[in-house]
């Protein structure tokens, strides 16, 4: 489904991604872990060409993303869902219009079909009661759910999540992670989840990648990653477990 080959990206003199290569198979849940500022979000933005990489190749369903013109790229983007860190809901639109927006712009559904789809995705994320609310009236967790609903309403084949649980309390964080897993199973999408939340990774991951300073330092199962003897991985998980226990105690 998704293949990244030797991807590199730098901002001025700072190398953010350094020769990154990996693959995500059809229906797989791939979790990319790493400390803040190691290039995880940049990687996701390169995949959808919000950022142009300096070198390397990106293939989605065997199409070279970097060689597509804008029209072809937009056709491909219709098959990709993206959940932003801040959910990125359109402030000036109600929940209904946020969900309706991509359907009106990119597809030819009748108003009745659109309404059915909106109701259906909002039921999936358990937020039907918020259909006429404005984004400013929603909590952080609700915004994430609506963002998720907007991303899946077009039934994408590939779903990209940028820190889906950041800024949420542990309970809501777990609920969002469970929801992502449920949706992935029911819609049979390929998912790439960027996070530094270990709990989220434990719930979602079929496979995990660890990024450090723009390089992949581990690619395998999460169990193998957590039991690795690599000094960086030991430190990373030690801090994550400490953080987790602190937030749980709070």
């Amino acid at each position, binding site marked *: 489904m998704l293949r990244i080959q030797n991807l590199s990206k730098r901002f001025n003199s700072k190398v953010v991604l350094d020769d990154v290569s990996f693959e995500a198979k059809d229906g797989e849940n791939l979790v990319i872990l790493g400390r803040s500022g190691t290039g995880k979000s940049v990687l996701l*933005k390169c995949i*959808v060409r*919000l950022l142009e990489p300096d070198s390397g190749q990106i293939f989605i369903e065997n199409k070279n993303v970097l060689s597509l013109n804008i029209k072809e790229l*937009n*056709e491909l*983007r*219709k098959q*990709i869902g*993206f959940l*932003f*860190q*801040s959910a*990125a*809901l*359109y*402030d000036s639109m109600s929940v209904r219009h946020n969900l309706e*927006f*991509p359907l009106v*712009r*990119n597809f030819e559904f009748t108003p009745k079909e659109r309404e059915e789809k909106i109701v259906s995705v909002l039921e999936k994320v358990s937020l039907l009661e918020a259909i006429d609310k404005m984004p400013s009236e929603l909590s952080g967790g609700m915004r994430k759910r609506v963002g998720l609903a907007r991303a899946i309403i*077009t039934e994408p084949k590939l779903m990209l999540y940028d820190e889906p649980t950041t800024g949420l309390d542990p309970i809501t964080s777990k609920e969002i992670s469970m929801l992502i897993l449920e949706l992935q199973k029911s819609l049979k999408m390929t998912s790439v989840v960027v996070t530094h939340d270990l709990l989220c990774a434990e719930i979602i991951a079929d496979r995990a990648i660890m990024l450090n300073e723009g390089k992949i330092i581990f690619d395998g199962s999460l169990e193998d990653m957590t039991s690795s003897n690599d000094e960086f991985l030991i430190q990373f998980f030690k801090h994550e477990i400490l953080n987790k226990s602190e937030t749980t105690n709070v």
Partner: protein
Amino acid sequence: MARRRLSYTYQLSLEKRITEFFIMIAGLWTFSVQFFKYVFVPPYEVYEVRKHMNELGIRTFPIVSVTGFIIGLVVAMQTQPVLARFGAESNLPGSVGISIVRELGPVITALIFAGRVSSGIGAELGSMRVTEQIDAMEVGAINPFKFLVVTRIFACTFILPVLTVYVIFISLFGAYVAVLLVQNMTFEFYLGSVLKSVEFGDAIPGILKTFVFGFIVGVVGTYKGYTTTNGTEGVGKASTTAVVVSSLLILIFDMILVKITLWLWPTV
């Protein structure tokens, strides 16, 4: 040593500012070209344009009404003693009318519009940029430039002339109030005097240049907002600089357009 370091820092800051200035000019030019590239391409965002025109009109309506009235009043109050000195008080309605129609109405309205609208657009698009809403549109295969930028520039370009015509009438009314304070004149007589002095050729260039001013306000506001960086601090900066740049450009283009008008129609 300290003075040399200060001078070096100042030089660096000056170089940075000059570079930023040229980047901005190039950006504004690109935005203008992109506008004409997309404005004729379907789908036409009629609903969005109408919505923005309504919002911009309503947002600016109260302030231009008050300012227009006061400007008319003050101009008439200032002109009256000067004309009285030359025994030409009867020319007051005509001379005030020409000033308002040809220059004051269009420029004052454009400057107020720039202050109110350009900053609003800069802040709105800037916050959309920093909260990744523009990225979300792009990832959703929606052209954010066409949806957010083209519609706003179009709305600004066409709502400003409407507001200008309104402000001209309000200013003329303000001037009449000032005239009433010193002379006993009916409104019909006053309006007749104004219309006798102000020719069609006075009004047209004044109104036409407001299309250019509206375009400037739209382009500067959207450019500053759309290219916002550095989070919320950047949003504030975008909003402020949008007002400064658009006001300055309005005055520069006014100078150019007045010169062109006088060159093309010397009798106007």
